């Protein structure tokens, strides 16, 4: 992380940083309950820049047809747009080949695909799948399902009070053997940044393949899948300023090649006869049925947007802003920070006095401040802290210090209403 934050002081000094980005997002230019919107829920779903909205609309208006099927002009245009976006994603995450970039409906489907197609055929009773205590439900339940189907065992690496994964225990668990390590890059509930390089190196030395849930990392920092050397990397379009319903599974080509298809249908085949079917090449083997073409086009536009801003700049800017937010809300009497890892990105969960997070959420919304409240699809994390939920403010490149100040002021209103 340190190499990415060289320019923090420069960016922070002006408190403008990426401020101009805010104007690229039309949804942010509205008032909620007579207050200008402060959107601090990008970890749930990020807003889209005008360029993404325009690109999707232009595709729908001019270029739509089915892909990979027609010789007519529109089908060619649609195919070029769809495949062009794949090339952009490949460069964005530095995948070695475009065959390694599989479109899915999102992170959840990407993880299910790996659980069912990569792991399930290899699993026998007693085999172990390793995850951590801070995973999102979508990186827990697919593994529980495949364990139920095969008799394999789900093993969970513990976390500490700060919300950091206990690396020492994780390493011991890897040494004991596992058929897969599935781990978040950044925790959606706590913001913890996992030292992935170190973890993946250790996993590989124990012959354990690694799937990374990258949903909360891709919008906030440079991701280089070859540098990480992960075997699979899953992420979603809508958390990185693209549309919903589109996501990516990156997988190493030799692994994807050896895997059976996940779903059967059109586009994933070369030849179909009742005597047998020949599957299509990568990545199409995993893209059955007419895909989310406009979603892919929007994803490509989102990648374009992020590359123009520069992921190093995004990472620096958000790092400083997160520090500012944590410091400012930390000053509030009765506020308890949940998730205080040394390395964090973009997310801060908290509790305020004994006010239930949903009441905080309603009062903040009343002041135009949008946050997420509840268990954040990470109930085991809530169990660990012995709480039912938290309030969570999450940042993106379009937020600024004014947003944080508005959050602080709205939290003061919550305290006032509850008479604290």
């Amino acid at each position: 992380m340190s190499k990415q934050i060289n320019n923090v002081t420069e960016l922070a000094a002006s408190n403008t940083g990426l401020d101009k980005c805010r104007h690229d997002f039309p949804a942010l230019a509205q008032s909620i309950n007579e207050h200008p919107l402060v959107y601090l829920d990008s970890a749930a779903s990020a807003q889209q820049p005008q360029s993404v909205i325009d690109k999707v609309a232009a595709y729908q208006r001019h270029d739509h047809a089915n892909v990979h099927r027609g010789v007519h002009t529109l089908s060619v245009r649609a195919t070029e747009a769809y495949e062009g976006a794949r090339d952009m994603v490949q460069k964005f995450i530095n995948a070695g080949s475009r065959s390694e970039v599989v479109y899915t409906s999102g992170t959840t489907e990407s993880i299910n695909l790996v659980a069912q197609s990569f792991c399930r055929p290899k699993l026998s009773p007693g085999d172990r799948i390793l995850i951590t205590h801070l995973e999102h439900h979508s990186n827990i339940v697919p593994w529980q399902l495949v364990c139920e189907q095969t008799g394999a065992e789900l093993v969970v690496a513990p976390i500490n009070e700060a919300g950091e994964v206990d690396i020492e225990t994780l390493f011991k668990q890897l040494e004991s053997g596992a058929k897969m390590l599935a781990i978040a890059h950044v925790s959606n509930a706590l913001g913890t940044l996992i030292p992935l390089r170190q973890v993946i190196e250790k996993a590989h030395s124990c012959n354990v393949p690694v799937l990374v849930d990258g949903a909360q990392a891709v919008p906030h920092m440079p991701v280089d899948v070859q540098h990480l050397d992960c075997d699979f990397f899953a992420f979603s379009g809508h958390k990185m300023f693209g549309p919903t319903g589109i996501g990516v599974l990156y997988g190493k080509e030799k692994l994807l090649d050896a895997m059976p298809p996940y779903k059967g249908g059109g586009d994933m085949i070369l030849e179909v006869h009742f005597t047998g079917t020949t599957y299509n090449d990568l990545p199409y083997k995993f893209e059955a049925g007419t895909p989310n073409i406009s979603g892919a086009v929007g994803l490509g536009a989102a990648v374009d947007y992020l590359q123009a801003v520069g992921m190093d700049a995004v990472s620096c800017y958000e790092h400083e802003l997160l520090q500012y937010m944590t410091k400012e809300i930390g000053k509030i009497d009765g506020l308890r920070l949940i998730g205080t890892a040394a390395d964090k990105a973009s997310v801060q969960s908290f509790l305020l006095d004994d006010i239930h997070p949903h009441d905080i959420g309603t009062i903040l919304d009343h002041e135009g401040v949008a946050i997420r409240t509840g268990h954040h699809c990470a109930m085991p994390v809530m169990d660990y802290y012995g709480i039912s939920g938290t309030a969570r403010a999450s940042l993106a490149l379009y937020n600024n210090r004014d947003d944080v100040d508005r959050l602080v002021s709205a939290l003061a209103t919550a305290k006032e209403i509850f008479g604290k």
Partner: protein
Amino acid sequence: MNSPMHSQDDLRDLYRELILDHARSPRHFGKLEGATHSAEGINPLCGDKLKMYFSIDDGGTIKDAKFEGSGCAISVASASLLTDTVIGMTSDVALDFFAVLVARLSGRSDNAEMPAADVDLGKLTALEGVKEFPSRVKCATLAWHALNSAIHREAEPATTE
């Protein structure tokens, strides 16, 4: 559909003093030993979880009611107000209150066919502040859905979904 725009009054109306009082000091809180009827209410989105207990005699009168669990101010206050309200009622009347309250809070009270539309909700009207906050209606009705399940002896926890 346009989302509602809230005024400062709406927020004070939602968190009016009676609600905050019941949220801070819930009445009849705890497990009811010897309950004849009980049911859980779970709001899967919020994580609110309440268990409602009732002691109903052979004549159908609710002799006692208690609840335990955790939730937001609205759901806890609503459960507390529920217990205050239904003790001494017959279960049929309590079910009328359930129907009327759910209809009023979710803005469906214009339906003339609704049973007992003339029910006077008494201090339960304090919950009407949620009408301006559609995402919170479920919080206010959770305990009442659990009451409905308990009286009908449904095995599954009640949800507001």
